[in-house]
Structure formats: C-alpha cells, structure tokens
C-alpha cells in the first residue's frame, strides 16, 4: 500500500481531473440518494435509520420521564390520591421498563448505527436492511408495550417482573404477557442490531485501521455489542419459561411442583447486571470521544482505557447476585459476589482518571459538550461511591429496595448514561443535521437538569435511610419522609423543565440558521470529515488509515478524501458498495454490494411483531400464521437482497487494488453474522440448561425419585439422526463446494429428512417416557429443551430447503455458495444443541440412577 502523501505529490493521478471527480460525485450521489415522498420510509441507509432510531428512543425517554413526573407528583404528599394504586404500579413498571429496554439500550444502538460508518470512514454497515428491520421491530414493539398503559393494561410487576407475582394469571393480568412477549420481540431486535454492530466494527474498518488504531468509540461498541450478545439471551430464555408458565401452566417457578421463583431472579440478573454496563459503557465511549477533542490531544492511556472497558465487561457478568443479597444466600456466596461488585470500581476508576489525565495534558477549550461531560462525572462518581457502599453486604441488607438504592441507581444512570448522551447529542448534532445547537439554551438546559437532579435525588439517600421502601404508591405521614419527598418532587420538575429546553433546542426549526463549519469542534476522528451539508454516501471515498486521529495526524487527509484519492471513489456500476476488510489488520478483502431502499424489513417486522402481539392475546393460530408470513417475507428479503451473484469476479477498488465482489465462508460478512447470532442463540439455550442444573442443585434428587424420564433408546435414536443430518450437511457442503451440484441436490433433502426424524425421536422420547410438562419442573424443563431443539431444527430445515431452491434456480452454485457455507455453520451449532439435549434427556437420568 502506498503512502497517501506520496500518491498525491509524486504521481499524477486521474483524480487530478476536477471534471472526473464531479462525475464520480454525481454517480455516488445518485446511488446513495435517499428515497423521497412516501417511499422515504423504505430507506435503509444508516444515517436515516440511525436518525429515526435515535428520535424513537428519545420519544420513549420523554414518555418514561412524564411517567416519572406523575409518580413524583403522587409522592409529593403523604396519603396523596393524585394517582390510583393501579396506575402508580403501572407507571413505575413502565418507567423502568421503558428507560431500560426502550431508551438506554436502543439509543446506544441508534447512535452507533448512525455514527459507525462515518466514524470508520466507510460507506455503510454490512447489513443496512438488518438495521432497518431492528428499528421497525423496536418501534412496533415499543408502541405496543407502552400503548398498553392507555388501556389500563400495562404490566404492574416492576421492570424485574418477579414470579410468582408475575407467573400466576390470577395475580397479574395481560400486562405481564405484554411485558414478556413485547419485550422479547424488542430484545430480538436489540440482538439483531448488536450483530450488525459487531460485524460492522470487525469487518468494515477502512484499510490500514488495525484494531489498535480503532477509535475508542468503536472499541466500546464492540465491547457493548458483545455484552448484549451474552446478556440478552438469558433473559429471552427466562421470558420463554415465564410465558410458558403463564400461558400453559408449565411450573418453572411454582415451588409446589418442583419449580423455584429464584430461578427467574438468576436469569433476570444475569441479564440485568451486565445491562447496567451495557447502558453505561456507550456513554463513557461518548466521553472518551469528546474529551480528546476538547483537550486537543489524543487520549492519554488509550490502551488502559480499552483494557478497562473489556475488564468491566468481564466483571459485569460475575456480579449479578448483588441484586439478590437478601434472598437468603450462604455467606460465602455473598462474600464472593460482594468482592466482584467492589472490583468493578477499578476499571471504572481507570477510565475516569484517564479522562482527567487527558485534560491535564491538553489545552482544554471549554464548550457545552464538556460542561455536560463534567456534570456527568460529578453525578456518576457520587453514584459509584454509593455503589461501593451497597456492594457491602451488611449495608445492602438495609439499603436494598429502599430509596437509598433509588438514589444510587439514578446517580449512576443519569450521570453515567443521560448526561454524556445529551453532551454527545450536542457534540454530534452538526454531524447529524449540519446545524449547531444553541450554546445558551444548552447551558440553561444543563443547569436546570443538573440542579434539578441533585435537588430530586440527593435527599433520596436520606429518605431511604429513614426507611422508605421502593415501589410504594403512597406512604403514611409522620415517618420523617414528608419534606424530603416534597423536595424530591420539586427537583424532578426542574429536570423536566431542563429536558424540555433541550428538546426544544433540538427540534426547533433551524431553516434560517447558517450551516455549521466543517469539523466545527476541530475533532480528530473521521466522522467530522463529512461535508456540510452532508451527503448520504458516508464517505467520499474509503481512506487509508495510519493513525488514531487521522484528521489531526494524517497530513492532507481531508484534501485526499475530498479529491477521492483513496478507495471506492466512484459508483461506476450504479450499485451501493462498501469496503470489507480483515478482522485484525483491516487489509482490504472485498467490495461488498449493499442493498438499497426496501419495504421488506418493515414488512418482516410487522408480521413478526404480529406473531408476538397476537400471541399476547392468546390468538395462537393467527399468531402462527403471521409468524409464517413474516418468515416468508424474511426469506424473500434474503433471496432478493443477499449474496447476489456479481456480474464480474473482481473490481478495481482504486489505487491499483483489485478486490473480489463475492466472498463465501469465513471470508464473508454473512458467515460472521451467522456465527455471532448463533453464539447468542447458544447462550439462550444455555439459559435453559442453566434452569435444568439450577433445579438439580436446589432439589435433593433431580429428576425426583420415581419421576417419569425420557425413553433412553429413543433419545439415542434422536442424537444419531441429528448427527447424521449434520454429517450430511457438512459433507454435502464440502462436495458441493468442490463442484458436485448433485451433492447439494441429494444431500439437502436427505439432511432435512434426517433432521425431521431426529426431532420426532426426541419428542417421542419425552412423550413415551410419560413426561407431562404441567406436572413437575423436571418434565417442563425437558419439554422446553425438546421444544427449543424442534424449533431450531425446523428453522435449519427451512435453510436447507432455501439452499436447495437456490441450487435449482442458479442462485447458489459451487462457485457462489455463501448461503450453503452459512447454513453449514448453523448446523455446527445445531450439533452442539442436539448433543446437549441428548446429554440432559438421555444421559443425565442415568447418572441419577433412574436410567434404563
């Protein structure tokens, strides 16, 4: 690879011709044009979808904020009757649920989808339609869940939804189903976005941007998306178990039939605690981007910051039990999880001190985003310190579920999520809209929110110490809480006023306001290389990166970029193209054709959404039909949008480099997406396996003595058939790849039949064994595992038939067989799933002495 400098100065280049450049730009503009009129909503481009996504997340934030103000109004006086008990319980449940599931996580994904391609100097993320699909799922699910409050049908079980309160239909009505199914739908969308972001960071970095040159924001995206991948699936598994208990009376959480309510708490908090860092780290990422810009120096201790982010992620998976200190655990477990909880202070400390160090080294220009970052630090550090307190077990015995914890968590989340995010909105507003926000309004909003926040939440520590528990819709007077609650409520109104000022500044018409100058903050990262007004093409061309802050450290970078002197400076074939590079060193690997505007992601989201929504109301037939239609739309989308056979093998990507247009196997982005998705899927399956072993640990005998157990020999038949199905796919793919079309045409149907036989054998094994899912948690757990396997094998068969259809229609050939390679990867995971299923159903009862 030649140096950019040398390229410009020493050699004449076709790019010296301004007319050529203009023609290129015209072609790029045409290709990346945003759809107009009513077709606007078919857009899939990251900048448009990211904008919708961000606005949607803030809409839910505002909604949840209004709920908070209603609650604070109710709590202003003792024995107040502003809100009824029913409405208050719905309000606090929805406040937590929306803030976590509809704001904090989605807004990270939204901002990241919007930023990533430009931050990486690339055109688009590898799967634009997946981003759009995730967005539509989010909006449909979000409106469904939040809308329920207008019908008095919102869930009332708290955002943690503990059974048995949530599992008995007599205790809680349809609200719990709305919560479980509506949020499962949104969680799937979150995982879809996480897959997109991981593949985006790993595979669409610009040439030369080795991992250690990657902007800190991208590191955090990688870490957080990875956390989502491991944290959300246990919750999805928990949702599945809880909904099965509610809808079909499978007793996972019913102690009278071998279940245990604590199982949910484990599954929920294995998700719920990493969740806290999932929402916190992205905001730290924003601070890590803002601080160097305004300090005018690269981040001091860059590697330490990266290591700390990774370390936080790891530790965060080992401290979920600190939400369960009062459930009666042995002291040794308490001590272990207490230590882990305290330990997370260290990587957090490193990150905070790295920011301070950077400010010390640089010459700081103070600005409104910096004001927000400083306010965030002041609030967050206080929340971190109270976090260290509640991590001490005896302290938690008192503070747990009191207003002390309410104060603590709002200090961490508002300091650790909201303020950095608002600072980030101000910082990237010119990037998003080409205009600047008002400094004056930004400061007003800041001081109203910052002051209001401390007025509202600082006294709450004391309210909690005076014994006020959380989640109470009313309280008696004379307990010492009256004045404190009054003060908190007044503070809350100031927060509301501050956010209203902020929202006005963001939304007010800015037609006459002049454009912001290009790179208005003099930042070092590539997203600010964008022209003003911005084009939808992401980057004029895909640059060569040799430094962490190219706008500061690479001489002539902007000029080279604007003159298209790097890669992919044209759209000769009239197709949307983006650069794919290798994971570690970012060597150019492929010119990836990405699809343009389409309604299919929206359609798929609508029908898959109906599957969940109709399921909520128990309309299972209609739900399944909609789910099937959704599946067909997804297949149609995949068929028309992915791995098209290109008109030529190679393409000149610029600077003398020729790259393939098609890649299969582990070289392709689709393979990576499948791999990452299946890691998440397997994690969800492990959630079910966890349930199995959890029951085993809490019961003296599991399966219980004399229980019916699955038929051993049928389980053996099941694993043999599953193994043969996998073998057929594996060998079939290999032989097909080496040229045998027949291998596909015979192997794919054969594998489908074997897979169907395997599922039938496992089902029969459980059925003939006499397992009745409503009788005992053991039976229910075995059945849920078989059900999981059955649904996954069914999806696997659909994939096999998709490939078969591809083979017959010429979409899939031995040369262009990316689909087959991806499906094989899926079946590798199915083999693991089947082996675990066999071990639990067939072998495990042998160990406990009840075998054949």
């Amino acid at each position: 690879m030649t140096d950019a400098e040398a390229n410009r100065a020493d050699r004449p280049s076709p790019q010296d011709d301004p007319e050529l450049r203009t023609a290129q730009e015209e072609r790029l503009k045409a290709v990346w044009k945003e759809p107009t009129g009513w077709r606007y909503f078919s857009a899939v481009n990251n900048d448009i979808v990211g904008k919708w996504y961000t606005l949607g997340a803030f809409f839910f934030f505002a909604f949840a904020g209004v709920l908070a103000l209603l609650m604070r109004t109710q709590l202003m006086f003792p024995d107040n009757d502003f809100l009824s008990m029913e409405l208050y319980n719905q309000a606090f449940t929805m406040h937590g649920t929306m803030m976590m599931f509809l704001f904090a996580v989605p807004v990270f994904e939204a901002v990241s989808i919007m930023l990533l391609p430009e931050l990486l100097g690339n055109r688009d993320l590898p799967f634009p339609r997946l981003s759009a699909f995730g967005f539509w799922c989010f909006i449909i699910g979000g409106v469904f869940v939040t809308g329920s409050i207008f019908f008095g049908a919102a869930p009332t079980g708290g955002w943690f939804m503990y059974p048995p309160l949530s599992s008995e239909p007599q205790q809680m009505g349809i609200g719990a189903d709305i919560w479980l199914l509506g949020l499962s739908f949104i969680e799937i969308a979150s995982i879809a976005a996480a897959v997109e972001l991981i593949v985006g960071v790993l595979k669409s970095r610009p040439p030369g941007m080795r991992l250690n040159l990657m902007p800190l924001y991208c590191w955090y995206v990688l870490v957080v998306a990875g956390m989502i991948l491991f944290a959300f699936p246990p919750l999805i598994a928990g949702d599945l178990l809880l909904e099965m208990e509610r809808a079909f009376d499978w007793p996972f959480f019913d102690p009278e039939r071998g279940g245990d309510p604590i199982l949910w708490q484990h599954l929920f908090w294995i998700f719920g605690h990493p969740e806290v860092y999932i929402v916190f780290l992205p905001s730290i990422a924003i601070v890590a981007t803002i601080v160097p810009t305004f300090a005018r120096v690269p981040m001091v201790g860059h590697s330490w910051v990266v290591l700390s982010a990774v370390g936080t992620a790891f530790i965060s998976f080992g401290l979920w039990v600190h939400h369960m200190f009062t459930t009666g655990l042995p002291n040794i477990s308490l001590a272990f999880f207490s230590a882990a909880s305290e330990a997370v202070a260290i990587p957090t400390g490193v990150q905070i001190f790295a920011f301070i160090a950077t400010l010390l080294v640089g010459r700081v220009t103070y600005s409104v985003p910096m004001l927000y970052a400083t306010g965030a630090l002041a609030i967050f550090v206080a929340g971190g310190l109270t976090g260290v307190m509640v991590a001490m077990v005896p302290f938690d015995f008192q503070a747990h579920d009191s207003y002390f914890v309410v104060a603590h968590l709002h200090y961490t989340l508002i300091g650790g999520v909201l303020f950095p995010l608002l600072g980030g909105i101000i910082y990237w507003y010119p990037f998003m809209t080409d205009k600047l926000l008002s400094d004056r309004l930004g400061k007003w909003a800041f001081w109203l929110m910052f002051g209001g926040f401390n007025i509202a939440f600082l006294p709450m520590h004391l309210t909690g110490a005076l014994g006020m528990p959380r989640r109470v819709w009313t309280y008696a007077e004379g307990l010492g809480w009256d004045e404190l609650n009054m003060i908190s409520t007044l503070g809350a109104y100031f927060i509301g006023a501050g956010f209203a000022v902020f929202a006005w500044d963001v939304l007010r018409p800015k037609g006459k306001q002049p454009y912001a100058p290009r790179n208005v903050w003099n930042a070092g990262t590539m997203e600010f290389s964008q022209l003003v007004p911005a084009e939808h093409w992401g980057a004029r061309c895909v640059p060569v990166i040799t430094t962490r802050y190219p706008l500061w450290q690479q001489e002539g970078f902007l000029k080279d970029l604007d003159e298209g002197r790097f890669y992919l400076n044209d759209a000769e074939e009239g197709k949307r193209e983006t650069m794919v590079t290798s994971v570690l060193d970012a060597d150019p690997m492929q010119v990836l054709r990405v699809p343009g505007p389409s309604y299919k992601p929206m359609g798929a989201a609508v029908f898959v959404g109906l599957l969940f929504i109709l399921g909520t109301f128990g309309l299972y037939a209609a739900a399944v039909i909609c789910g099937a239609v959704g599946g067909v739309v997804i297949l149609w989308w995949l068929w028309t949008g992915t791995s098209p056979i290109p008109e030529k093998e190679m393409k000149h990507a610029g600077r003398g480099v020729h790259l393939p247009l098609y890649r299969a196997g582990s070289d392709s982005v689709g393979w990576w997406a499948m791999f990452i998705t299946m890691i998440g899927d397997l994690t969800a399956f492990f959630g079910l396996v966890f349930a199995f072993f959890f029951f085993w640990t809490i019961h003296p005998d599991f399966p219980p003595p004399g229980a019916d157990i699955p038929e051993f020999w049928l389980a053996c038949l099941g694993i043999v058939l599953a193994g043969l199905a996998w073998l057929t796919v594996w060998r079939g793919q290999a032989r097909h790849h080496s040229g045998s079309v027949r291998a596909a045409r015979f192997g794919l149907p054969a594998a489908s039949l074997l897979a169907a036989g395997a599922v039938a054998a496992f089902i029969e094994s459980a059925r003939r064994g006499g397992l009745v899912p409503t009788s005992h948690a053991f039976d229910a757990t075995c059945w849920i595992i078989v059900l999981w396997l059955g649904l996954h094998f069914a999806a696997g068969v659909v994939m096999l038939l998709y490939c078969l259809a591809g083979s017959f229609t010429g979409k899939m050939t031995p040369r262009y067989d990316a689909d087959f390679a991806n499906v094989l990867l899926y079946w590798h995971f199915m083999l693991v799933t089947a082996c675990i299923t066999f071990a639990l159903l067939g072998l495990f009862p042998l160990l406990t002495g009840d075998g054949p």
Partner: protein
Amino acid sequence: MQSGEGTSLRIVHHPRGRRLIVLMPLWLAGCDGPQSWLAPAGRGADTVAGLFWVVVPAAAVIWTVVIGLAVYAGAITPRPHSEKGASRLILWGGIVAPTATIFALMVVSLFLLRDVTGNSADLTLNARGEQWWWRLAYEDPQGRLVPVPNELRLPVGHEAEILLTANRVIHSFWAPTLGGKIDMIPGRENRMTLTPTTPGVYRGQCAEFCGEAHAQMAFPVVVMQPDAFDDWLAGQAQPARAPATEAARRGAELFLSEGCGACHTVRGTPASGEVGPDLTHVGSRLTIGAGVLETSREALIDWIAAPEVVKPGARMPGYAMLSEAELGYLADYLMGLE
C-alpha cells in the same frame, strides 16, 4: 395495651438517638424516625449505622478530590502537564487508590457480615408473608405456636431468630431500626436474627414489591423489657375473652352470622378461618390492616365497612351493607378482644 410502653406509634423513645443529637450537628436530628436505620435500636442496625457514618464522609472526601481534580484539569490548569505525570495519575488514582480502598472495605464488611448474622437465639418465631399482611407466630416456652399477626414484639437484649417464608408471592421482612431485611420466598425458608438493644415502638414494612397493596404492608415493632414480654406472650397464648358488654355480645353474634369466621380465627369461639389474620387478641394490637390504621373503635368501623378504601387491593371484602349500629357492635366486640 399490654406493652407497658404506652407510646403512640409516632413517638419514638430512643435514648441513643438523643445522644447522637447532642453529639452531632443539628441536622442529624433529621435521621430519627420510627423506620430509620440511622436511629438504630438493635445490634444489626447499629453496625450498619456505624458503617454509614464512616463510609459516607469518606465518600464525600473522595468525591471532592476526584471532582476537584477534574475541574482543575478541565477548567483551571494554567499549562499542559507532562504525559508522564498524567499517566502516573491514572496508575495511582485509577488503580492503586481504588484497589486499596475496596480491599479495606471488603475486609471490614466481611467481619461486619459475621456480626449481623447471629446464631444464639433465645426465641424463635415464624413469619409468613401473606398478601398483604404478616402471619407471625411465636414459639412459647411450652413449645406451642402463638399466632400474633402483624405485630413484632421482642424482648430487649435477647437474640430472636425469625424463620421466614411466604404464601404465593415474594415479600421482604424489614424492621430497619433493628436490622436489615431478608426476603420471604414461597417454597423456601430463610432465617434472620434480630437483637433489640433499646426499648421503644418502631415500624417495619415490606421491602419487596408484592402486588397491589405492597405500599401498605407494614407492622409495628415493639421492643419490651423481658418480663413484660413474657407476660404479653402468655396473654397472647390465651383464648379470647368473652364479650363483656351487651354491644360486644351482639358484635360476637354478628361476627359469626356474617361469616367473618370463615377467614378469621378467634380462639375459643367457632370462628376458625385461616385465610385472614387471627383476631383472638386484636383489641390489644397497636394497628389494624397490617400497620395501616391505629387500632380504635372508629378505625375498625372504617376498615370493616370498606377495607378497599383504606387499603386499595386488600383482599377482605367490605361490609358496607351492615348498618352503622351493626358495624359499631362488631367494633365493640373486636376492641374487647384484648
């Protein structure tokens, strides 16, 4: 009342609290309260309150240093510092200082954890969380179970062991002035110990969201002299008194004829329902409705007529169809059950 304290719920006798008020600045008076863990009246609460007054000032100092440093670095610093010095700051401020601090805290908190979990109880009681009240029962010296719903009374200076479970949903048993909380979980039995150190009347409350009336699931906590406690428990073990007045007698009849006995037990009468609280000595209890109303004739009338109004979500049906006189008789009868 047999408590011998003669206090209303709102007034708290609290010698230690007074001493604190004398010793510490005036604003600390705000830490007093019948449900405050900063006004401890038991060993566990005392430990945590002591911890609180160490870690909170320490946290305030750390906060001031870190934020002071950030403001200095961001807004005041006259000239850029060297990168070497700044890196050293990350090492000392971000790694060494927090590691040392949390290591010390860990050690301390492990010792305190051992302190707050006692295992030499003189008294055992069973506590079962119901929606939304407390089914408490003491083991008396004869080994019998004495049901005393919705009121926790303990002898000062004696460790009490409480065995906790729940019916249907999860609750959390919390008497903050005595010690921390432990959850009550269906299908499980948890254990906690409380050692009261200061006689007085306090308040406890459910700390785990348990459905509609969670906010109004409370209980009075009375710490008594051991002799008074023994007398009280012996009294509670007795069957109900016969009605002493004509009005109370008519109330007793109504109690049975209106079906109250289907849910409530009055020992010594045919009323033997197990769904709601045992009312054998309801007249001697400080509150009704699980800490919601102070016991009085008027409160009983309000409660019986419309529990749903006093405590939204309460499972007891209202008896508004009874005449005012009939409600009065019932209240007279129940007030007489001392």
